[in-house]
């Protein structure tokens, strides 16, 4: 699995639970190192060992932690670059939702060997969407749920999100867009980081 994904897990655990707990997780995972490098590739089973160790050491359901990780990736100042890249997807939340179809391609444009599973947004009725998260990265839909929730806050929109089961091996997230500009979102200036 790409180092960026492993590094995201590391950043989330270290920031939320502290460096000591991360070390305990890595000791239990038994990989022989503590820090992941963002720009290196790691065998998938190493990541799975870390996730399993997180469940034991932190004593929380994995799905819940992964959703928190999605939120962390958007809302934590450390990960500001990622929030900005997601905001480039659209001027409002609905446009952002549609940009998710392009997310795996966008990710690959930035980092050529970063492969994310396909995402597909289906509008069922005005304000009612389904996001189909293809398989390939266990827990992907949990992380996406957290990202969708945090991005709604970022735009200041009110949404209701729910796991809507599995169809053709793909996880479905149902999205009800209740209100735009429900609260004041965070500002996004195109040029803030461009130089």
């Amino acid at each position, binding site marked *: 699995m790409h180092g*960026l994904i492993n590094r995201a897990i590391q950043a989330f655990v270290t920031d939320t639970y502290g460096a000591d707990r991360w070390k305990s997780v890595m000791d239990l995972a038994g990989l022989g190192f503590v820090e992941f*490098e*963002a*720009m*290196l590739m790691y065998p998938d089973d190493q990541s799975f060992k870390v996730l399993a160790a997180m469940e034991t050491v932190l004593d929380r359901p994995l799905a819940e932690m992964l959703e928190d990780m999605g939120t962390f990736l958007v809302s934590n100042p450390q990960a500001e*670059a990622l929030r*900005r*890249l997601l905001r*480039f997807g659209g*001027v409002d939340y609905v446009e952002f939702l549609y940009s998710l179809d392009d997310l795996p391609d*966008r990710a690959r*444009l*930035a*980092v050529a060997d970063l492969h994310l599973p396909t995402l597909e947004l289906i509008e069922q009725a005005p304000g009612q969407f389904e996001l189909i998260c293809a398989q390939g990265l266990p827990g992907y839909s949990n992380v996406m749920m957290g990202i969708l929730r945090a991005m709604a806050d970022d735009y200041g929109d009110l949404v209701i999100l729910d796991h809507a089961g599995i169809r053709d091996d793909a996880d479905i997230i149902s999205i009800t867009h209740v209100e735009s500009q429900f609260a004041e979102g965070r500002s996004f*200036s*195109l*040029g*803030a*980081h*461009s*130089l």
Partner: protein
Amino acid sequence: MMTPQQLSEFADQICPMHVIFDASGRITSAGPTLRKLRPDYDWVGQDFFDIIAVSRPRWVRSVDDMLRSAGVKLHMNFASDPQTGLKGVLAPLPAGGGFLNMSFGISVLEAVRDYDLTSADFSPTDLTIEMLYLVEAKSAAMEASRQLNMRLQGAKIAAEEQAFTDTLTGLKNRRALDHVLSRMIDSGKEFALMHVDLDYFKQVNDTMGHAAGDAVLQRVAQVLIDCTREVDTAVRVGGDEFILLLDGLTDAETLERIANRLIECLEEPVPFEGKLCRISASAGTSLAKEAKPRDATTLIHQADLALYAAKNAGRGQHLFYQPNMEMMG
């Protein structure tokens, strides 16, 4: 046929950075993004060349030149500060005058920041937003790679350092000796190679233990460093054997003095856990001068012979290599 008003509204939609001017060069329409760059200007009714300067092609100086430039890529900038760069292309209008469509070109990064532009300021077909996304994504990825490279570079230097260092004493090791010696030989400079062998070290190890032996070796390393200059190289080549490479030094008298001082210092007892460890040292030196054979094996062999002779002469002594030592060896 479209009225000028309709054309202007049409152009605002499709080309947010357009300018339409009449045959005399007076602006009749300017796109919303362009107007945002100079909100104080009236635009309509103003002379085009009062606002925009054409830098290339150089022959474009008048409205007629502009019209003749149809289809050619124009390089322009604002006449007033900030002189944001623009590029564009002009098409003459049937009713006279021209339609000029512009974009930022490479200056877009500064422009987005200077004028606080948003997605809405760019035509949906414009790739600027995608470009800004790419610049940012690539910069972030590049920064992560750069940090990885720096960490790897640091690890590489540390690993090399370690590969050339004797861990107990911190002196250079045998591998480093081969490296430094061949470099000094290649450089053509004169130098001395002094082989130092500890006397009575085995007794210290046997009677007082390895910890005492290690303490003595660390003390020896300190003496070797103290008695030589920074340009010299001190190497631990074996358990209790050391080689000094003395850069640019072939004067017998000076070398004799250094060797004697070295032996004297090494004979000072080393305290260890309330007891004193006593050792001495013998030394043999070969000289790398221009006339002499300059190869590593010969130099080390000659220093070995001199050391052997010094040991035979009763230890605690230093001798230079002499050709007659070959017979004795």
